[in-house]
């Protein structure tokens, strides 16, 4: 081989090495950028938690939970807010869970492929993108004025129920889909009807996934503010809803469903919107409670999902 050829070959090899080194650097730089992006996101979460906790945790006391809101920040509490949140959660759960699971089961097990089910599926996907506040506007027009349900716990619960419905439907479908067909065939082979198969097999086996969806949707509902403002939540309530149990017959009362309400996020919104820093402390304390509740609920959901994936190896 002539020296010229050799030299040009060497130059090529050097060129290739430089090219590779350059690309290795880009790879590394992108990896670092990715790591930084993740770290930044996690640090934001951490900053939020720490900031809220430093301001809010010292304010947490027994009285904070047992006092009504007040003009005096140090006397104000969230009694009506957490009772309201709790009552609305129950209403939401009663509305969304059966409806969502039923819809999920229908779409996954019963529905044949036609334009109607196609429409329903497309609609569920799109519902996730509809701004939550328009649910509130719809509820104000439909539930409050059309159906005369008033600006009540019932209206609020239904609104949030419809809002989180797609979450439950989607997770139910995903959970049912993981049950292998052999289970269905086995059930049918033993003479089970479709509903018996669903009730005795599909639902129990997919309960973990469904439960995850339920928890996630309730955690979403508990922190939701905007649609409830639209529906007409009050920010200053110094009384509790009617008790659900009575001393005399029929012992159970649903009067509370028609009562006006406030919830923790709205109480927090009210406090954070005031100029006095003392109220901001109250807002932070409410925020801590909200944050702990939503993070714990999400944590449980993640854990259940993880456990189910570990346990269920079909």
């Amino acid at each position: 081989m002539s020296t010229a050829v050799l030299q040009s070959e060497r130059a090529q090899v050097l060129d290739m090495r430089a090219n590779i080194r350059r690309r290795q650097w880009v790879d590394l730089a992108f990896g670092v950028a990715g790591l930084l992006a993740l770290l930044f996101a996690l640090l934001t979460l951490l900053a939020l938690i720490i900031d809220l906790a430093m301001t809010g945790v010292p304010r947490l006391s027994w009285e904070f939970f047992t006092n009504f809101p007040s003009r005096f920040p140090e006397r104000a509490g969230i009694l009506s807010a957490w009772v309201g949140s709790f009552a609305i959660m129950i209403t939401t759960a009663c509305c969304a869970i059966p409806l969502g699971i039923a819809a999920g089961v229908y779409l996954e097990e019963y529905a044949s492929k036609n334009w109607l089910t196609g429409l329903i599926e497309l609609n569920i996907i799109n519902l996730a993108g509809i701004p939550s506040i328009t649910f509130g506007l719809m509820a104000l027009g439909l539930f409050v004025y059309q159906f005369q349900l008033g600006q009540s716990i019932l209206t609020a619960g239904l609104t949030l129920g419809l809002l989180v419905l797609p979450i439950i439907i989607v997770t139910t479908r995903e959970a049912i889909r993981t049950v292998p067909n052999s289970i269905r065939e086995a059930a049918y082979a033993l003479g089970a009807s479709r509903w018996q198969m669903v009730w005795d097999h599909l639902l129990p086996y997919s309960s973990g996934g469904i439960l995850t969806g339920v928890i996630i949707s309730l955690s979403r509902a508990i922190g939701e503010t905007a649609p409830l403002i639209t529906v007409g939540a009050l920010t200053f309530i110094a009384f509790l809803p009617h008790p659900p149990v009575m001393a005399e017959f029929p012992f159970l009362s649903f009067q509370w469903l028609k009562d006006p309400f406030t919830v923790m996020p709205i109480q927090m919104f009210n406090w954070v919107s005031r100029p006095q820093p003392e109220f901001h402390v109250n807002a932070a304390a409410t925020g801590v409670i909200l944050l702990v509740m939503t993070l714990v609920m999400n944590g449980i959901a993640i854990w259940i999902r993880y456990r189910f994936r570990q346990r269920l190896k079909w």
Partner: protein
Amino acid sequence: MKERFIEAILFLAATSSVFVTFGIVWILVKESIPFFAHVPLGEFLTGTEWTPLFENARFGILPLLCGTLLSTAIALSVAIPLGTVAAAFLSEYTKPWLREILKPILELLAAVPTVVYGYFALLFVTPLLQKIHPDLGGFNVLSAGLVMGMMIVPYVSSLSEDAMRSVPGHLKEGSFALGASRFQTIFRVVIPTAFSGMTSAYILAISRALGETMVVSIAAGMQPNLTANPLEPAATITAFIVQVSMGDLPHGSIGYQSIYVAGLTLLFLTLCFNVLGLWLRQKYQEKE
């Protein structure tokens, strides 16, 4: 017989979601119609003042539209780069066990109640920005937009990561076998292949940003302001709806109708972006 009955009930449950959509559109349109009997459409679309609650009421949607688009733009300029890079990192750089831990933690960002984010924007981010830029007012679109951006990072990253990871392994192998680097494989093969799924992620993120209410209501102030300056306060469509709802407006008044008009505009805006996304996806899939 019992079986048929059960199936009918389940079917009704499944259609409920369609009724919700139908109900939203119907109510918004129904309550908006009387508004347009009072305010000409031209004035609504081109007016530069939005003061429905004043004595001398003006109904120009532009200031609200401007606030909404500005805060959304800021949020997206944070969420899309950050979310996409994080997604590529999770999908192509991390080991599976690490991804299993990081992804749920990242998703917690989306689980935090929005009102808490509002607090964070007003009382943590704004003071922080004021250290850099002392003239910044207590209410501004910038801090609201930035916090919204962080809030929607998981919407971008989670769905994008799913899309990237569903790119067939043999395509990635094909790229590596030709001497491509990881970065080149991500940008030349993985992202183009996953583009359709990533568009859905972006569209969802845009929808979230457009409809986000509490962060802007708390941290951006509530004055309608026709400005492109993120350092100023401004009101979004959603913030306006909140502002009116907090007060006590009689059913049927023009102020009451105006929140429905605002809601309808918001829905229409969201729809536009969704159609745009659909069109982009289709256009891209044809090219494939």
